[in-house]
């Protein structure tokens, strides 16, 4: 898996630590729950130990996908992301107070609250993690066109609700 001469576990830990900061922050922005983001990333780390990713290519996308799925499973329903959209209004969890405080300190905090989880995932993956639309589509298990449409909707929402930012 990872091209390293050390033991695979040590190599995986090293890789994981390299991606951890950006992935953690991305997951906080998507899941709106710091503790859940830590849990999901830890699960992704364990998953990488158990079944290493097939290649070094797009490791950020792989970790993001695994962590998002683990996050949904930890939280409860474990619905596919498409169904998350359908029932989002019913099951959008409450934001923990510490994460609320964090969002209040961010300029983007209010905008993130306006978006659905899928929209947050697409925006953060694209603009923060720098993933391509195809990588995002693979990570979320949707079509590339859906990623583009979702990104467009998210930007539209953010423009309407974020005049103080843009």
């Amino acid at each position, binding site marked *: 898996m990872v091209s390293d001469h050390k033991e695979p576990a040590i190599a995986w830990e090293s890789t994981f630590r390299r991606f951890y900061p950006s992935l953690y*922050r*991305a997951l906080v922005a998507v899941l709106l729950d710091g*503790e859940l983001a830590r*849990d999901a990333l*830890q699960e992704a780390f364990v998953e990488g130990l158990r079944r290493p990713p097939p290649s070094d290519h797009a490791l950020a996308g792989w970790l993001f996908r695994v962590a998002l799925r683990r996050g949904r499973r930890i939280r409860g329903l474990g619905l596919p992301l498409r169904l998350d959209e359908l029932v989002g209004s019913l099951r959008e969890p409450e934001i923990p107070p510490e994460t609320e405080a964090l969002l209040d*300190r961010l300029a983007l905090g209010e905008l993130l609250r306006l978006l659905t989880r899928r929209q947050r995932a697409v*925006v953060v993956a694209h603009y923060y993690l720098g993933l391509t639309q195809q990588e995002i589509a693979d990570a979320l298990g949707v079509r590339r066109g859906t990623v583009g449409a979702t990104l467009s909707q998210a930007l539209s929402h953010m423009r309407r609700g974020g005049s103080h930012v*843009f």
Partner: protein
Amino acid sequence: MSSDLRDLIRTDLDRIPLPPDGEWIQPRAQRRVRASRAAAIALVVIVVVVASLGAGQALRAVRDWVETQRVATGLVAGNDYVYLADGDPSSQYIQIVAMPSGQSVGRLVGQTYVGSVQEGGLIGVSGDVAYLPVASSGGLPLDTLNTYLERVDLRRGVPVGRIGTGFLTAPRLEPNELPGTAAFAAATATSADGRTLWLVRDTGEHGLTASVDRFDAQVASVTPLAHATINSTGPGATRSRIVALGPDRIAVVREHYPVTYQGGRLGVDWYILDDQLLTIATYPFEEHRLPASGFCSTDVRADPTSSGWVVLCSDPFLAADGAVVFLSRDGSIVAQTPLSRELGYALGMTLAADATVNVLTSRPVVARVDARTHGLIDARPVTETRSLLERLLPPATAAKGPGGPGVVFSLDGRYAYLIADPLAKIELSTAKVVARAPSIAAVGAIALSEDGERLYALVIDRQTRTLALLDPRTLRTASQSAPLPNDPYGIVIVRTPLPLGP
């Protein structure tokens, strides 16, 4: 805008503080707490759902298990004499079978008259002593018969005396008048205390004249204490039965047949007589004063809300609606609750402790009537919770038993045992089949032991007749007799024999 947004997002999200790097790959205790909390909540939900939905079934399962254990401990065992009707209807006999051994221990010989298939049922026998009408021709001139009532001790299974009723000349009968018409067409009934005996004889042409006598059963005198005659004008031939309503009330039930028997009855007259055998109420079928042309069960029950009686009327041909009829002590109709013929033929009824009359019909349907208000509470089709495999079998439907009633009720009135295919146990409060007896072939007659702890079924398997002892709780077969001789067709009564003396 995109580059501005990208910069803004990167700058802003980079401000999110990271957890201590020593914890990045450490197992998260908090997550386990959260998971265990979710598991606990899920467990509570499961427990609540299972408890609420399955409480009834669980209780039923526990009850069935307990009952099964009781059966396993031998509580179903017990000795009974089962009195079976056999022989040709014109020359009927009663065969006594000891259960559970299944041995035929005796046969009461004589031209008795206990009822036949053609006549719709068997005579009612109650108490510890039965008086069976017998006509004997031994040693007498041709066509002359010596008639008497044979007194049978039901708990010993032996005849213990006779009450002579005189000689008669055998009536000349048309060969096709009525299949198996007895030479001595008579029927008896005894009071619940065994002190009074009533006898009705059908005399004259086609039995149109009924002679009714009341005897003191304790002195076995041949002289009746009271006598009455009831004349019918027809149509057809008439056969009578007698129903003891109480110590001072009887009903004489006269069934009319076509003179040339065609397999059916025309109608039934009911007469209510007092202790002096004076007729105090008359219900001829042609005037339709009783519902269903007078086709009413002789299984008359005491009305728990008055001093009168409850009678179940239903036309076996379903040409008219039936009814539950409430009679007063003077024999007049107090009220009648109609039973639509669409409900099916009413096989029988039982009274619950709360004065509810439960009627089971041939569809089968459980109809409930409030004896206090005389109103129909409801009529519910009998349903059955069955597995997918069992659904391949036909649902419970009543089969007409050739001998005796097609249904008997548990002593507490909670359950009905219905001759169906196969025999079914129905809980009347829920109108549901709660047990079946799939292991036995077609059942011709059923009867319960006196204490209601044993159910007997006359099993007709092609040419073989056997008697099966069933556990009334589960309908499991506890024992079965060897093939019985003389092809019995009905169960007259079940009595527990006296223990053998030293």
